[in-house]
């Protein structure tokens, strides 16, 4: 079984200060020096593929794992993927920032997925920053013409070559048995964190390089309109009043009286 995981490495935005966010909104911020990490949902997709590989090997089913990203990504992330067991790592170059161009990303990935032997199962994160578009997996499945499972949290490979996909639904969760090929977008997954590579595997992978995938531009019928994008910072409420408390006991008493006051109102 050939499995492709689409991932993105993104700046960690949780620690962005209001001043930094404001500067980005005004077009003078710079995220080049921000700490980079796997996209939150993409990390779960990468780990899910490794777990599927372990299952398939136990079933004596041949499996290859590939990971692909569009745009810039530091070499250390590729090395990590090789070190934890990915057979292929592919980078699709992009000259510009595609944060708000999900269709172009999906199109590039669709070209890769259709190249060579193709893929039986494609995994991706449901969405990633900074665009937060939540469009790439669905568009990619549409472009590939394969079934799509959004908000997937677990996948099992069955011996008959099909998969069982568990997904969050608006009123609960679903488990669906499906023939392949299919695309699953992971969110709030059962195993959200990517495993760490062993040092010896990292050293072994340090000389491996990722493949570069080039493709011809979109044919005219696939030229999509991309919106004009403007960013701005929205002022949030401030004016926090610090409650006086010398000890944890005093703080606890203050908080409990606040809660009591609120309950009585």
């Amino acid at each position, binding site marked *: 079984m050939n499995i492709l995981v689409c991932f993105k490495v993104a700046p960690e935005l949780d620690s962005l200060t209001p001043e930094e966010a404001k500067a980005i909104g005004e077009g003078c911020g710079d995220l080049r020096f921000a700490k980079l990490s796997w996209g939150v949902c993409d990390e779960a997709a990468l780990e899910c593929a490794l777990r599927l590989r372990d299952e398939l090997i136990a079933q004596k089913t041949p499996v290859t794992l590939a990971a692909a990203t569009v745009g810039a990504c530091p070499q250390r992330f590729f090395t990590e993927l090789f070190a934890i067991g990915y057979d292929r790592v592919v980078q699709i170059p992009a000259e510009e920032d595609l*944060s708000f161009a999900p269709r172009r990303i999906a199109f590039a990935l669709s070209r890769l997925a259709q190249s060579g032997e193709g893929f039986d199962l494609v995994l991706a994160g449901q969405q990633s920053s900074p665009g937060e578009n939540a469009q790439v997996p669905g568009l990619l499945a549409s472009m590939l013409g394969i079934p799509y499972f959004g908000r997937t949290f677990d996948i099992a490979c069955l011996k008959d070559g099909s998969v069982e996909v568990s997904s969050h639904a608006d009123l609960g969760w679903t488990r669906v048995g499906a023939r392949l090929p299919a695309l699953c977008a992971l969110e709030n997954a059962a195993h959200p964190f990517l495993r760490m590579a062993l040092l010896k595997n990292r050293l072994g992978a340090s000389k491996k390089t990722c493949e570069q995938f080039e493709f011809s531009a979109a044919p005219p019928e696939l030229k999509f309109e991309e919106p004009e994008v403007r960013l701005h910072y929205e002022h949030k409420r401030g004016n926090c009043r610090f409650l006086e408390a010398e000890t944890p006991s005093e703080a606890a008493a203050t908080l409990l009286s606040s809660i009591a006051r*609120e309950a009585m109102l």
Partner: protein
Amino acid sequence: MNAAIVLSAHNSEAQARELLCAARSAGAQNIFIWAFHGAAGWTMHLPAQQVLSIRVTQPSFVDSLADALGRYYLKVRPELMLFYGDGWGNDLAVRFSHLCGGSLATNITGIRRFDGGVRVTRRAYGLHLVSELTFQRGPFLFSIDGDSFEKLPSAGVPGLMVETLPLQTPWRLRYELHPREQVEDLSGYPVVLIGGRGLGSKENAERLMRLGTLLGAGVGATRPAVFNGWFGLDRLVGASGERIQPKLCVVFGASGCAPLMLGIKKSGRIIAVNSDPNAQIFDACDEGVVGDCGEIIGEMLAKAERGEAPKAFLRI
């Protein structure tokens, strides 16, 4: 301008009225409601031109629904199509935009029409920024972010049409729907306690849960606390979890990142407890306490167990 609002069985009347408000904000005059899985009775009081009640014959997947949606699209050719920004609505909007070649944005928080196009706003950059997207080529397909639009109050008497839709999903082998069990619904509590990564341990998370039970307060958690295994996923509050609006929200040990704030920003009052006086959350709360969360929760719990705390509140 014609607009179509696409609903699923789990969408509520309030959500439908938000969608109607968004459609009117975009200047839609004729609004058609396409209710998959059948139209609920309340749809007949919505200010719309027509309600189409579509009964599907088997579990519906967005792939097959998107194909089916094309049939109704071709009849009316709406310039604007709106979906509610939950999992179903977002997925369907994405899939159908590819089929119809329309312009697409998910989870929009604002919309207005101008000569030659539509301008929408949505959150980006870890929800720190607002992005304004200008589209010129229709049809325009948008899903709306919950609680971002008013609920259009006016009543109407739309026409009703009923159709049955046979769906084809040849790739499907089995299907099981597991309804949500014992979901912790935080929406009914006047006071909600939120635990973040700064709780430091599962023991402190358990103490917070006990405290919540003694006080009659709801207990929610941030994403890092849930993924550390300290709380169940049904307690997740924030962009990818529940959005709450209690009278008082007390947040323990959370940095105050944008996804959490999106989930609690409609609270009447927010009190944050954090050991770092420079934590971001103090920029976004009403009152703050600087201190060790574990110790403060321990003290609160001890007082509550001794009966020195207010007794259980009634749920709203």
